[in-house]
């Protein structure tokens, strides 16, 4: 079974549609075709359907939510009812007793004890969906966001790029990154900067427990209010920022227009609000017993607030934007974008004339095909997905290889976007994105995922892999850039990585100045494949690859970060 292997993307989605009851007849026909095409596809389909069946049988909890299942839990069933008509009954586990009820009633047995694979009790413990508060805001954009708290898993914008509904009373705990929230009909917008804890009160107000935010409120939405532990900030049609420190003390800074700021007081107390104008800032002390709350002016500009996030879309950040920048780089020597209408175009080297061809691994295709039009990281690109067989993935599948030799320069950089589909075979998996190999020892395994997806490199077939802390999360897109500086029998390697799917806007140094034994071999360039010790095609990449670029220089971190920025865009701060 290859749960997330790219060759099963379509199969998986169609099977999911079947299980969700959403499949169309045309899709069903396509699904039947895919399932009957290979044993691997059939196995995948049956495992998926079996999982769906198990969850249906167990009511979704599988016993782990409450107590472990015992196969033979005793359920006592009192039998006294006449037969229930079998047609179109509602499918509840308790109804499974109905037939037995009928059997027993027919034989005039009034009661029996049944040893039963007990699931009935668990189903009863599934809570009914709670009353749902109204949607009053939407999460519309995030940058490098990591959420905590009870709603963390429902705030993944990659799963719903059009926005995520936020309900009255919902708590948001932003542990990392930035998040933009549109209130009401979208009139008021708030940018939350981590670490922050913020509650959506209703369509016109929120409570900032800690952290900072910037609010932009047009005149028609004047009255929008931000509460903090110490202050109440009422907007009069403007742009302002609020920060709450650990002590509960608040700072308010106004960029445009004006606000009123009042200390939070006890019930029945109505302190006079202070007007704060554009360019001004105030501090409101945390409430303390017996001490009058004060609002005191402070110097504006002492604190950085994020005032806007980049507009979404290919004009500010996209793979297409990266492609434009890469194409202009003077040190670019090979460039595979996998764009175009024909295979010839897709496998064309846009810079160095080192075009690619499909090659089959030494143990055969494994029943699959390479997908030259796989889905890329965003809508502006398409990728190529090599095929990795299962089982025996290290030696079965289909990848790409250059038609001529690649001569590694003394210093070079390989940059690419990759999506690792996972490694069902686990330890021992060698999944190669970019490589060369000359003989059993001389090799250039430039970008490789081993075992469960750990990023490694290798220049000598008998040497150990370099090590990194990066383990690719299956199904997620990464930007990866590795630099190689050849020395006397060794190669110094650096690798930088960012998870694009999770919006990581800053590169992580995954491999830092590691000196690998050996120097990169000159040979045909494998893309989505490697070579075994006899230089036969092997180790196909599990997943998709895109925008493979080779430069004849070690690119610096600033340049690589700019390339990442080109994909994701960048936020602007209050000096805008």
């Amino acid at each position, binding site marked *: 079974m290859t749960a997330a292997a790219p060759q099963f993307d379509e199969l998986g989605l169609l099977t999911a549609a079947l299980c969700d009851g959403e499949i169309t007849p045309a899709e069903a026909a396509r699904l039947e075709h895919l399932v009957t095409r290979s044993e691997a596809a059939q196995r995948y389909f049956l495992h998926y359907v079996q999982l769906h069946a198990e969850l249906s049988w167990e009511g979704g909890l599988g016993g782990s939510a409450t107590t472990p299942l015992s196969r033979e839990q005793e359920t006592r069933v009192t039998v006294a009812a006449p037969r229930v008509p079998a*047609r179109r009954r509602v499918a509840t586990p308790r109804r499974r007793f109905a037939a037995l009820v009928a*059997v027993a009633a027919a034989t005039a047995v009034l009661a029996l004890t049944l040893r039963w694979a007990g699931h009935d009790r668990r189903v009863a413990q599934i809570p009914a969906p709670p009353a749902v508060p109204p949607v009053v805001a939407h999460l519309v954009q995030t940058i490098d966001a990591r959420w905590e708290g009870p709603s963390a898993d429902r705030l993944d914008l990659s799963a719903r790029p059009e926005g995520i509904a936020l309900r009255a009373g919902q708590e948001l705990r932003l542990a990392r990154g930035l998040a933009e929230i549109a209130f009401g009909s979208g009139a008021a917008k708030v940018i939350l900067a981590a670490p922050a804890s913020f509650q959506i009160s209703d369509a016109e107000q929120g409570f900032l427990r800690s952290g900072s935010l910037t609010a932009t409120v047009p005149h028609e939405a004047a009255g929008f209010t931000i509460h903090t532990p110490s202050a109440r900030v009422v907007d009069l049609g403007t742009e302002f920022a609020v920060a709450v420190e650990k002590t509960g003390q608040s700072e308010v800074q106004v960029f445009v227009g004006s606000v009123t700021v009042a200390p939070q007081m006890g019930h029945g107390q109505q302190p006079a609000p202070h007007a704060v104008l554009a360019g001004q800032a105030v501090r409101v002390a945390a409430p303390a017993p017996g001490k009058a709350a004060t609002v005191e002016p402070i110097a504006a500009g002492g604190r950085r607030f994020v005032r806007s996030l980049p507009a979404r879309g290919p004009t500010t950040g996209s793979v297409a934007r990266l492609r434009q920048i890469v194409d202009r780089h003077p040190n670019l020597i090979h460039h595979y974008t996998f764009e175009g209408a024909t295979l010839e175009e897709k496998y064309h080297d846009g810079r160095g004339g080192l075009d690619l061809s499909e090659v089959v691994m030494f143990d055969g295709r494994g029943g699959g095909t390479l997908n030259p039009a796989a889905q890329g990281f965003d809508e502006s690109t398409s990728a190529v997905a090599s095929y990795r067989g299962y089982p025996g993935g290290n030696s079965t599948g289909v990848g790409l290889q250059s038609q001529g030799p690649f001569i590694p320069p003394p210093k070079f950089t390989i940059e690419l976007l990759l999506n690792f589909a996972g490694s069902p075979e686990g330890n021992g998996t060698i999944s190669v994105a970019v490589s060369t190999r000359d003989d059993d020892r001389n090799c250039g395994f430039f970008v490789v995922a081993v075992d469960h997806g750990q990023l490694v490199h290798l220049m000598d077939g008998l040497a150990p892999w370099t090590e990194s802390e990066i383990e690719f999360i299956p199904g997620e897109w990464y930007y990866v850039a590795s630099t190689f500086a050849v020395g006397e029998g060794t190669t110094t390697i650096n690798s930088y990585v960012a998870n694009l799917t999770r919006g990581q806007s800053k590169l992580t140094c995954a491999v830092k100045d590691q000196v690998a034994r050996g120097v990169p071999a000159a040979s045909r360039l494998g893309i989505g494949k490697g070579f075994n010790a006899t230089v036969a095609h092997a180790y196909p990449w599990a997943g998709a690859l895109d925008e493979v670029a080779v430069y004849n220089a070690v690119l610096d971190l600033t340049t690589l970060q700019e390339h990442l920025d080109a994909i994701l865009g960048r936020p602007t701060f209050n000096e805008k």
Partner: protein
Amino acid sequence: MDNVGGPTESSKPGESAKIEQFAQLLGTCQRQVFLYAMRLLHSAADAEEVLQETNLVLWRKFGQYQPGSEFGRWACGIAHYEVLKLREKKPRAERLFSDQFIDMLATPTQRSTEMLDARRDALQHCLGKLSAADRQLVAARYQPQGSTRSVAESLGRSVQGTRKALHRIRLALMACIQRNTAREEPA
């Protein structure tokens, strides 16, 4: 009066023992039959119906059952006919797959049958590894009468987004099950 488990006045001699034996055998095969029906029908409501019809046929034919033979296999054989009967009753347009395809799916290998328990145990383990939110989503989707659409509506999410989330969770569970049954799976 609590007379659970005891013979009643109208029971024939030996009848209660027969029922007890039947009930015990039936209890051991319910999940197997349901999973088998799901394998062919993919709908919990349809599989439920087949399970109930199968139970009735099993009782009617219980006299033909050879003690010691595999009750679950016998039950699945009857369930197969019930699946075909259910398909025949449906309009052609509602039959998503061809008869040949259903025949292909209806042929579980001995090995795959043996793997059912291993995969079920692995599933319990893997469900425990899901995040609380994912488990809640699974529980909501698979509760009685639950559907992807009803879950999406109750959570205020799009149907598409909910389907994606469920698909992602199922893939994660499949990968986890695979890892946990790897030693037992056929190569």
